[in-house]
């Protein structure tokens, strides 16, 4: 039942290309704002979160302060707090090792490694590897080539992520009626709050549907 790192890498492989493409667009966007060549590359290596990086970059690009940029990105990443708590029971070893392994949590890997509320540690870490390679490599390519590359959105790669998440969601929905009810509630919350709150918070708020669903059992 438990998977190897190799199983994880194989599970994450379909995401290599779309992650790289979004990485390219991040590199291009950062350079177009006048960033040094190294800045987007270092950022992708040490932050490794597409939505948070785009959020902070757009705040800085609009003339916002460092505090506003960091806050926007932190809100986008706030969902990793409950996701990390959910992943934690699968980890062993000392706190430093657990903290390090917790860095592997990204949306797709977390969802792939989810086994009805418990998590397959090696599958999660393995699935993150191709995504990190794609994200870092794509950023380097985009930062170096700059605007010589056309708009990656032309290829429709931005539709791959919601499609991937939808496939994982379909598996969850086949499991139970309560999962379907929670998904409908969470989706309604996220859509209703998107025009009202900064990016990221609607997704965190949608997680409250899971709390409500669990209380009703």
């Amino acid at each position, binding site marked *: 039942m438990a998977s190897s790192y190799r199983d994880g890498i194989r599970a994450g492989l*379909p995401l290599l290309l*779309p992650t790289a493409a979004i990485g390219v667009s991040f590199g291009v966007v950062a350079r177009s704002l006048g*960033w*040094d060549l190294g*800045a987007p590359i270092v950022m992708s290596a040490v932050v*490794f*979160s597409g939505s948070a990086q785009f959020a902070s970059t*757009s705040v*800085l690009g609009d003339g916002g*302060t*460092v505090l506003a*940029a*960091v806050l926007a990105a*932190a809100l986008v*990443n706030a969902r*990793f*707090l409950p*996701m*990390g*708590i*959910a*992943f*934690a*029971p699968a980890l*062993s*070893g000392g*706190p430093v090792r*657990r*903290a390090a*392994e*917790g*860095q592997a949590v990204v949306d797709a890997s977390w969802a792939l490694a989810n086994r009805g509320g418990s998590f397959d540690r090696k599958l999660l870490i393995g699935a993150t590897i191709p995504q990190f390679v794609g994200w870092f490599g794509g950023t380097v390519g985009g930062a170096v080539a700059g605007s010589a590359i056309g708009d990656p959105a*032309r*290829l*429709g790669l931005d*539709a*791959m992520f*919601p*499609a991937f*998440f*939808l*496939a994982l*969601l*379909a598996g969850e*929905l086949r499991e139970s009626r*309560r999962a379907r009810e*929670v*998904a409908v*509630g*969470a989706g309604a919350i*996220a*859509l209703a709050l*998107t025009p*009202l*709150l900064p*990016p990221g918070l*609607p*997704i965190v708020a949608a997680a409250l549907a*899971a709390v409500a669903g*669990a209380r009703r059992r």
Partner: protein
Amino acid sequence: MTAVWTTIGLLALISAGIKATGPVLVGGRDLPGWATGVIELLAPALLAALVLVETFGSDRALVLDARAPGVAAAALAIALRAPLLLTVVLAAAVTAAVRALT
């Protein structure tokens, strides 16, 4: 450029801190029963939110653009039990085709 590098440094620390909190505080231990119930439902909740926000969200607005037909095609493929890779490639192809035509 100082603002950019400061942002990168702070964000790296904060992101790592957010991801480390759960593993450091509750790592290796079983969660209480009520928390397990929530976590079982966390995946459908977060995935549903991510699908909709990444299909219709554009910063602080809801928009209907070429992503929607791509994701609709993926939904059809999923209903027909198509393989995962085919599903995501189909979504990209349909979105790219709609973008090219509009």
